[in-house]
């Protein structure tokens, strides 16, 4: 059987490409890491892959706002063959393929207009900006999955414990109409919550003050998924800060981290007919 192929973009300050590749490999897929310029220069084509991934990092040092400079590049810079990258993405999605963006990658997707895309015109509708704490923070949070969100990435997951590591993760929505669209279409697929799954705006459970307590978004087809927390940082039980007590309570606990499920889900959905 043909293996699922994941393309992981790097370059310009992206820095989570290796754990992202490891996530796909552990999930049974093939993963290749390429510099964005290799796509622009025609060395590799996104169409040879099934999932396109934008990992976390600090592209251009977050100058001009997180994700801004790299999303400008992807939106406006012409590729070597004269085409626009966005047109390639359009074709990629039309082929029924999937896009994942984590943290900085989510910030690109939002600023490129791919998420949430309520209006279906790829105009920027939300932004991710300075946390209310005015600080970068690395802490573990819980995210509640919206059961009505239609995306293979989150199938069978109810509450996801996962680390956030960002200074600009607060979702701000352009206006009430867009907000209504997000809620009505269930595009807000992940919300910050407590250990029991109750959605909350209380800091630090909601680490940044995001509107709708939103930690992740999908587009209306569920093909594009972006989130602030890092599922690829929870591939192993031993990534969890409380693995000691978890193992003591349940000596037979799985050594896989819960974040791995996100990748297993997408690989499985692309494998099964």
């Amino acid at each position, binding site marked *: 059987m043909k293996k699922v192929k994941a393309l992981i973009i*790097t*370059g*310009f*300050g*992206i*820095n*989570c490409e*290796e*754990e992202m590749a*490891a996530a796909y*490999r552990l999930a049974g897929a093939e993963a290749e890491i390429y*510099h964005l*310029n*290799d796509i622009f*220069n025609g060395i590799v084509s996104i169409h040879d892959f099934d999932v396109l991934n934008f990992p*976390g*990092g*600090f592209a*251009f*040092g977050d*100058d*001009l*706002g997180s994700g*801004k*400079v790299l999303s*400008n590049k992807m939106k*406006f*810079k*012409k590729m070597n063959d004269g085409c626009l990258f966005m047109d390639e993405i359009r074709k990629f999605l039309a082929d029924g393929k999937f896009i994942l963006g984590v943290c900085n990658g989510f910030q690109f997707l939002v*600023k490129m207009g791919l998420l949430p895309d309520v209006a279906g015109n790829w105009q*920027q509708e939300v*932004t991710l*900006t*300075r946390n209310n704490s*005015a*600080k*970068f*923070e*690395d*802490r*573990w949070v819980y995210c509640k999955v919206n059961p009505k969100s239609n995306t293979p990435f989150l199938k069978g997951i109810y509450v996801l414990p996962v*680390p956030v*590591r960002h200074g600009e993760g607060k979702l*701000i929505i*352009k206006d009430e109409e867009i907000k209504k669209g997000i809620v009505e279409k269930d595009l807000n697929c992940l919300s910050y919550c407590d250990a029991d799954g109750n959605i909350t705006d209380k800091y630090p459970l909601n680490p940044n003050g995001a509107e709708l307590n939103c930690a992740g978004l999908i587009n209306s087809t569920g093909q594009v998924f972006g989130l602030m927390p*890092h599922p*690829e*940082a*929870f*591939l*192993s039980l*031993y*990534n969890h*800060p*409380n693995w*000691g*007590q978890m193992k*003591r*309570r349940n000596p037979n606990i799985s*050594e896989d981290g819960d974040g791995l499920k996100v990748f297993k889900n997408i690989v499985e959905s692309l494998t099964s007919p």
Partner: protein
Amino acid sequence: MKNQIQLVLKENIRDVEGEKIRQEAANFLQIDTGIVKTGKIFNVMYDLSEKEIELFANLGLKDEIIHDVFINSFYQNSKFKTFILIARLPGVTDDEGVSAQKTLIDILDLDLDVNTQHIYTDDIYLFEKDLTDSQLKELAEKMLGNKLIQHFEFGKFTGRIDYIPEVKITSDEQVKIIDLNITDDELMRLSKDMLLSLNLEEMQAIQAHFADEKVKKYRSEKGLSLDPTDCELEVLAQTWSEHCKHKEFSATIKYTNKETGEEKTIDSLFKTYIRKSTEIIRERLEKAGNNWLLKIFTDNAGVVKINDESVFVWKVETHNSPSAIDPYGGAITGILGNNRDPLGTGIGGGKLLFNTNVLCFGPPNYDKELLPGQLHPRRIMEGVRHGIEDGGNKSGIPTVNGSIIFDDRYSGKPLVYCGTGGVMPYTLNGMNSWLKPIAAGDLIIMAGGRVGKDGIHGATFSSAEIDEHSPQSAVQIGSPITQKLLGDFMQEAVKIGLIKCSTDNGAGGLSSSIGELATISGGAIVNLEKVPLKYANLKPWEIYISESQERMTFVVTNDKKDELYNLAKEREVELSDIGIFTDNGFIDVRFDEQSVAFLDMEFLHEGVPKKFMEAVWEKPKLTEPQIPSNLDYNETLEKLMGSLNICSRENVIRQYDHEVKGKTTIKSLMGPDGKAPQDAAVMRLNFDSFAGIAVSNGIIPRYSDIDAYEMSAGAFDEAIRQIIAVGGKLPDPEDKSNRFWTVNDNFCVPDSLYDPKTNPDGKLKLAKLVQMNEALFDMSTFYNIPMTSGKDSMKNDFKAGKIKISVPPTILYSMVAKVDDVRRNVTSDFKASGDLIYQIGQTYNELGASEFYRLFDELGANVPKVRKADSKRIYEKVIKANDQNLIESNHDISDGGLAVTLTESAFGGGFGAEIYLDKLSDLDLKAILFAESHSRFVCSIKPENKTEFEKLFGKDAMLLGEVINEHRLKVKFQNSDVINIEMNKLRTAWEKGLL
């Protein structure tokens, strides 16, 4: 033509930055600013049309959800009465401007120069309150900016900003000849005027060299001046600087110990203690056929073998002086510079795995009057923390552990230790990755950032005391994004064999990097006109010794040059081919074919006169204090938990990304609420196996007030026991599994050169340094734990007029040890109620220099001593217990003693503890609870393992009590409750100590 674009947040968007400034101004400066509105200004110097500027502003810069944009006009609102503008001084790194340039060419599809500065960014702050000029000045200088690197404007905003920090240098003569036929006084004046930091003997050695007939002969044959050029003097000063040559660690020292009557002459502390101890260990390893020490002391970082596929490379350094005058810039260049050490070891291009940092500051509540040029400790702390945050986070390197130490004596010069570890493949294209082969004919290629005036005299500056006239050019701001691109590029280029080997450009710039590499081939020719500059008209010597950051020097063979350049173009990294290695024994520096420096390498590297220093040890007369006998132990413990050296670092830790790369398995804070402080960090090496490394650090400067030997030995023990606590194993020369240990030693001491007037206690200070080295040797050879690299920083004094603030003699041991299986590690937090709690190791009457005594402002006399044989026996038992899965939690006992350790393990796991101390020993209760005796742990075990555990440990472990669900710490001694307090109270005190 200049265009200006301003971005401000829309009225309905919360200005979190403004809110933070308002709060901090109120808290720290007692200034009520009212509402603060922040804004960003882009001064665009490119020649662009109105349409282009509009597109750039709206598409390139503005986030349409949150920003309003103003083009060639500024946001004004009568609600705001006053303003501050913070711009950069000419030549100061402006990454945001550069990023704006890059997005400009992407959006408009223009072909413009983006390698030099054409867009300058400013920050503007509008204040609701009508603040006075002196309030605004205070806000600008003490909170928002640093006048060494920034330009301020403030007052009532007129709607105009004219300031543009373009660099304009007029050029005069390129190369100056310096007359050395001068008197000794004039030699010293020359050293001072040129900021050479060379002493009379060294100046005389240079004078004699140029007067030497042989030297005269080849100089006249070559048509060179007989006197040295400015560049030659600068190169000698840089190469001979304390920072680069470690003259005091190489000095001949006459040591007198008046306590024991011992007298000895030490020919170099480095050779006698540091290198020697590692050589002894290497011999033992070789004898057993298990040598994992691949490279020691000879490259940018030491290298040890992990297995047949990979090697571990790491380095820890300090960046103290720059951090004292610009904390953010000092720390970020410190950590980025440190990253380049493992990156530039051997062939280079290693994958950087983690950062670590240890910081020593004055107390944040420091209330003495600040001396000229001295920054407030709180400001230094926040700036340094921010620099480490950006340096690590933006490079995608996790900051996995660290430590912060407070002492009044760090309030002049802070200590900023930065460390970085990385992994290289064992072989690269068939060659051992840690080797550095260079032959005549190989090309010298510079890569990365451009060269400006930044950091000129950095190497000599760090070897001098700080005073109010310290040069501005010593301040630099790092650019993590430039370095990230460079590092990624190197990894790719090295993998496909395009780079023969490499080194970093740090202190001393090209002069240092090329100077050191040229010793391998035997010489080099450098063409300075080929070095790309940030701005025109630098003098040749400035180009050669500039410390502009984010640069590496590559050694490249001619046949690989084109391919390397092609890859660099694709990865947007700038390369320049600046010279060639030779084997004629000379460093030959030219500018447009004019000779700038022509120096005999032997004189350059070996010509520095050996220093002679005197050390005299006299034991201080110290006594144990009287502590009130009616001590309230609840209150004392609460105070101790909130004291500066014990309380929580969570606010700092959470601002560092400590888990990027997805490999960190023991982080600084663990447990159900992420509140349990851990002893050592542990990381996996890759995703295919569970093998990993543990990283620890030992540092206890306050013990040196009683006994510098025990301070150093204790710090070494502390670093070992942290690794043992998490489940590490001691090294064994007979072990076949490459279970390496590797240490970086970092000495930071005050000026220890005796001078009757300026440094009357210099001999005592030097004696302490000798003793610190003796302890290093004793501990290292006893445990077979080798130094593989390190650094010394010798002049940690802050001077203003007649006042001098000197740091206490400080040594940091940073250790890394291989861990077989991270799944078997142990964390510090209690795991379940009902588990039994033990103290492992023996407590002694050792409260000297303890945190407990510090509560009473006392020093005491009985400093904790390391008892090596006992410690080793105990550690071996802990290792055995872990092999048998007997230990559920383990936490090393250090600052604050047993009581603090118990408290941390209890609240860390979300439990309480019930403790009976009677069996422990016949010591005084204060010593039992608070002494900091070494080689001890608080551990917990399952009740069913009691018999086996006690059988294994015998008298080396004592049952203390058990873990309880009730959130209280209850301690009974001689049938009475000495401590009975809610855990929450202790945890709250601990959490609030640094806020």
